[in-house]
C-alpha cells in the first residue's frame, strides 16, 4: 500500500516534470504565492506557498537560465516588495539566509569531514563581537563599568568600515577555527564533540565576563548601539520611485535597512553556496569525504588528514564569521545570549534535518527550522494567547482556556522541537530529508551501460563518519 502511494506520487512528479509543465508550474506557483502573500500578509499557508514556489524550481527540470531568472526575480524584486509590506517576512527570510550560511559552514565540518562540532556558534560570536567592538563606542569605554557610558561618546570608526569587517570577520573566524581545530589533531569522534562544546561555552562565558579588567564585551548587558552602514542619499527615494506603487506606501529608513541586510545576507549565502559546491567538487572536497569515510585509508592514499581537517574547521568557521558581522550590524546589538549551546545545537539540527553533507539539504533544513520557530510555533503561541483571552473552553472536561498557564508558550519550546527532530532523524532517517547524493559524471562507458546499472545511488550512505564500518562482506563476484 505504502509502496503504491509512493509510486503514484512518483508518476505524478514525473508527469509534472516533463516538457513545458515545470515552467508553468513554477511560474504559476510563484505568481500565486506572491499574490497570496501580497493580499494576506499574515497568513502562513500563503507564505508556505510562496516559499515552495521559491524552492521548487531547483528540483524541476527547467533550463538553467530560466531558473536563474526566476531566482533573481524572487530574490531581488518579490521578496523586498513583500518584505516592505510586512517586515516580519523579511525577518524570516533574513534569518533563513543567515542560518543557511551557518548550516553550510557547519556542514563542511560535520557533513563533509565527519567532525562533530557542538560549539559552532563560537565563530558566529567571534564575527559578531568583532564588529560589535569596533563598530560601536566600546573601544572608548574600556575602563567604564557596563551601563555607565558617558553621553556623547564617539563611535570608534566610521560606519562604512562594516563592509571591510565582513571580510575581517571571515579571516578572524577562520583563525579562531584553526585554533579550535587544533585538538582535532589528537582527538576524534565523540570526544571531539565534547571539546568543541567546551570551547563554545568558554567563548560565550568570556563574552559574558570580559567586562573587567578591561571592558571588552560589556558583559551580560551586551554591546549597543552598533553602527549600520550608511545609506547613500537617494537610495530610498530610488527604491520608492520604483516599488512604491507595488508596496502601497513609501518605505521608511528602518524598513529599508532590513531590505539592505537581507540583500547582504543573500550575497553572503550565495558566496557560501558557491564556495561549498566548488570545494566539494575538487580534490579538497573529495579528500574531506574520504577522511569521513575511512581516515586510515585516506591517509594511506597520501591525504594529509590533519591539514585538511584544520582546513575544514577554518572554512566552516569563516562563513559564521561573516554572518556574525552582519548579525551585529543588523541588530545593532549583541549579547552573549545569542551564542548559547542551544543555538549551536539548533544549527546542527538544521544540518541533520536537511541532510548531512547535502548542500540543498542543509538549506532546506535551515528554512524548515526557521519557519517552524518563527512562524509555526509563534502563531501557535498567538493562537493560544487569543484562546486565553476568550471564553472558550473544552466541553467535556470543562477546561477554560483562560486558565491555561501563561508559561505554556510554544514559541519558547525550541529545545523540545530540536530534540525531537534530532532523535527522530537519527532513528528513522539519519541521512536527512534530502540525502547527499554523489555527483554523477559524464563518463564514456557509463553512458553506454548506464541502463544496466540497477543500483540506486540516491542514498549516499547515512552521511555520518563511520570508521568502524566493516568492509563489504565477501560476496560471490558474478561479473567475471
Amino acid at each position, binding site marked *: 500500500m505504502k509502496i503504491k502511494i509512493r509510486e503514484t506520487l512518483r508518476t505524478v512528479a514525473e508527469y509534472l516534470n516533463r516538457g513545458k509543465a515545470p515552467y508553468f508550474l513554477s511560474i504559476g506557483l510563484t505568481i500565486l504565492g506572491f499574490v497570496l502573500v501580497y493580499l494576506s500578509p499574515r497568513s502562513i499557508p500563503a507564505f508556505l506557498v510562496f516559499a515552495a514556489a521559491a524552492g521548487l524550481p531547483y528540483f524541476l527540470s527547467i533550463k538553467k537560465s530560466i531558473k536563474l531568472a526566476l531566482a533573481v526575480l524572487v530574490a531581488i524584486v518579490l521578496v523586498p516588495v513583500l518584505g516592505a509590506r510586512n517586515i516580519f517576512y523579511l525577518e524570516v527570510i533574513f534569518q533563513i539566509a543567515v542560518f543557511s550560511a551557518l548550516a553550510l559552514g557547519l556542514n563542511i565540518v560535520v557533513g563533509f569531514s565527519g567532525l562533530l562540532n557542538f560549539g559552532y556558534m563560537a565563530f558566529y560570536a567571534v564575527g559578531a563581537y568583532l564588529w560589535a567592538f569596533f563598530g560601536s563606542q566600546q573601544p572608548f569605554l574600556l575602563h567604564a563599568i557596563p551601563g555607565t557610558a558617558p553621553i556623547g561618546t564617539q563611535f570608534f570608526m566610521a560606519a562604512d568600515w562594516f563592509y571591510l569587517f565582513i571580510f575581517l570577520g571571515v579571516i578572524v573566524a577562520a583563525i579562531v577555527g584553526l585554533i579550535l581545530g587544533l585538538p582535532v589533531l589528537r582527538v576524534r569522534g565523540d570526544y571531539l564533540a565534547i571539546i568543541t562544546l567546551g570551547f563554545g561555552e568558554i567563548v560565550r562565558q568570556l563574552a559574558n565576563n570580559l567586562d573587567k579588567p578591561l571592558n571588552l564585551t560589556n558583559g551580560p548587558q551586551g554591546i549597543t548601539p552598533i553602527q549600520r552602514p550608511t545609506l547613500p542619499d537617494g537610495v530610498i527615494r530610488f527604491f520608492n520611485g520604483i516599488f512604491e506603487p507595488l508596496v502601497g506606501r513609501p518605505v521608511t529608513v528602518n524598513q529599508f535597512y532590513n531590505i539592505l541586510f537581507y540583500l547582504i545576507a543573500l550575497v553572503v549565502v550565495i558566496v557560501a553556496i558557491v564556495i561549498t559546491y566548488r570545494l566539494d567538487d575538487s580534490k579538497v572536497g573529495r579528500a574531506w569525504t574520504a577522511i569521513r569515510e575511512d581516515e586510515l585509508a585516506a591517509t*594511506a592514499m597520501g591525504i594529509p588528514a590533519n591539514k585538511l581537517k584544520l582546513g575544514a574547521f577554518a572554512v566552516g568557521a569563516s562563513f559564521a564569521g561573516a554572518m556574525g558581522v552582519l548579525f551585529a550590524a543588523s541588530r545593532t546589538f549583541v549579547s552573549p545570549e545569542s551564542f548559547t549551546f542551544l543555538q549551536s545545537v539548533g544549527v546542527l539540527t538544521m544540518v541533520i534535518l536537511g541532510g548531512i553533507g547535502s548542500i540543498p539539504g542543509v538549506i532546506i533544513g535551515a528554512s524548515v527550522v526557521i519557519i517552524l520557530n518563527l512562524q509555526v510555533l509563534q502563531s501557535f503561541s498567538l493562537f493560544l494567547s487569543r484562546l486565553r483571552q476568550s471564553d472558550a473552553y473544552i466541553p467535556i472536561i470543562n477546561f477554560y482556556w483562560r486558565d491555561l498557564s501563561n508559561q505554556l508558550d510554544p514559541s519558547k519550546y525550541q529545545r523540545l522541537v530540536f530534540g525531537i527532530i534530532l532523535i527522530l532523524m537519527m532513528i528513522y532517517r539519519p541521512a536527512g530529508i534530502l540525502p547527499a547524493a*554523489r555527483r554523477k559524471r559524464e563518463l564514456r562507458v557509463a553512458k*553506454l551501460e548506464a541502463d544496466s546499472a540497477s543500483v540506486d545511488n540516491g542514498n549516499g550512505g547515512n552521511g555520518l563518519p563511520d570508521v568502524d564500518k566493516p568492509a563489504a562482506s565477501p560476496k560471490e563476484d558474478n561479473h567475471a
Partner: protein
Amino acid sequence: MPDPVDILATTNVVKRFGGLTAVNKMSFTIRQGCIYSIIGPNGAGKTTFFNTISGLYKPEEGSILFDGHRIEGQPPEKITALHMARTFQNIRLFGGMTVVENILVGAYTRLKQSSIQAVFRTRAFLDEEKKAESRAEELMEYVGLYGVGNELAASLPYGAQRRVEIARALASEPKLLLLDEPTAGMNPSESADALQLFRRLRDDLGITILLIEHDMKVVMNVSERITVMDYGEKIAEGTPKEIAANPRVIEAYLGRGAAAAMTA
C-alpha cells in the same frame, strides 16, 4: 649503499607495540621491476611490516630506503608523493563515494590544483580535473571495470572492489605497489585474472610489486623472489623453488612434526 636498481631496501627495521615486537630486524631489498612476495603464517607481522613501509607506523629502529630517499618515520603523504601506493587486506574503499571519486582520491598527491583555483574554477583547474577524470576512466578499463564509474564503491561485488582498490592505488602513479593479500576471498578463476593483471602492471607500466599473499599457488606462480616471515622475523628468502624446499618454511607453516615427516 645499495645497488641503484634496488627500489626498496629495508635495514634492520623493528616495530614494537608495547612489549610485543611485531617486526624484528627485517632487512630485504627489492629490485626494480620485480614481483616480490612476503609470505608467512597468520600473525607473522607481514601487514605490520607493510604499514611500516607505507608510513602508517613509525619504526622504532632501522632504516627504509625507497627510490633513493630515506622514508622511515615519514608521514604517508610524503611517501605517496615519492610514488609508492598500497592496497589493504580487508578492502578499504570509500564506500559512500563513487568509483571514479575513489580513483580521484588516489590521485590526490598528483593534482596540483589549489583550493583558490577550485573556488574560481580557473582554466588550469578545469583542465586538470578533466584530465584526472579521463585518466581515472582509463585506469578503470585497465583493471577491467566497465560502466561502474558512477556506482557507489560499496555497492560493487567483492572482486570488483578489489579492482577499484588497485585502480585507486594506480592513480597515484606508483613505482612501487604494495598489495596486501589481493586475491583473498577470490575464486580460482578470479585470482588467475588478478595474477594476469599484476603481470601486466609490471610488464606494461614497469611497476614493481610487493605482495603479501596466503595463497601458495599464487605466490609460487607469480613471484620472482619470496621472503618468509615468522614471529616478526625473516626466516628465509629466495626464489619460489628455494622457498618450497626450505625445511624452516615448511616448519613455520605446518609445524615441526609435519616438517620432520616431509624431510624424512
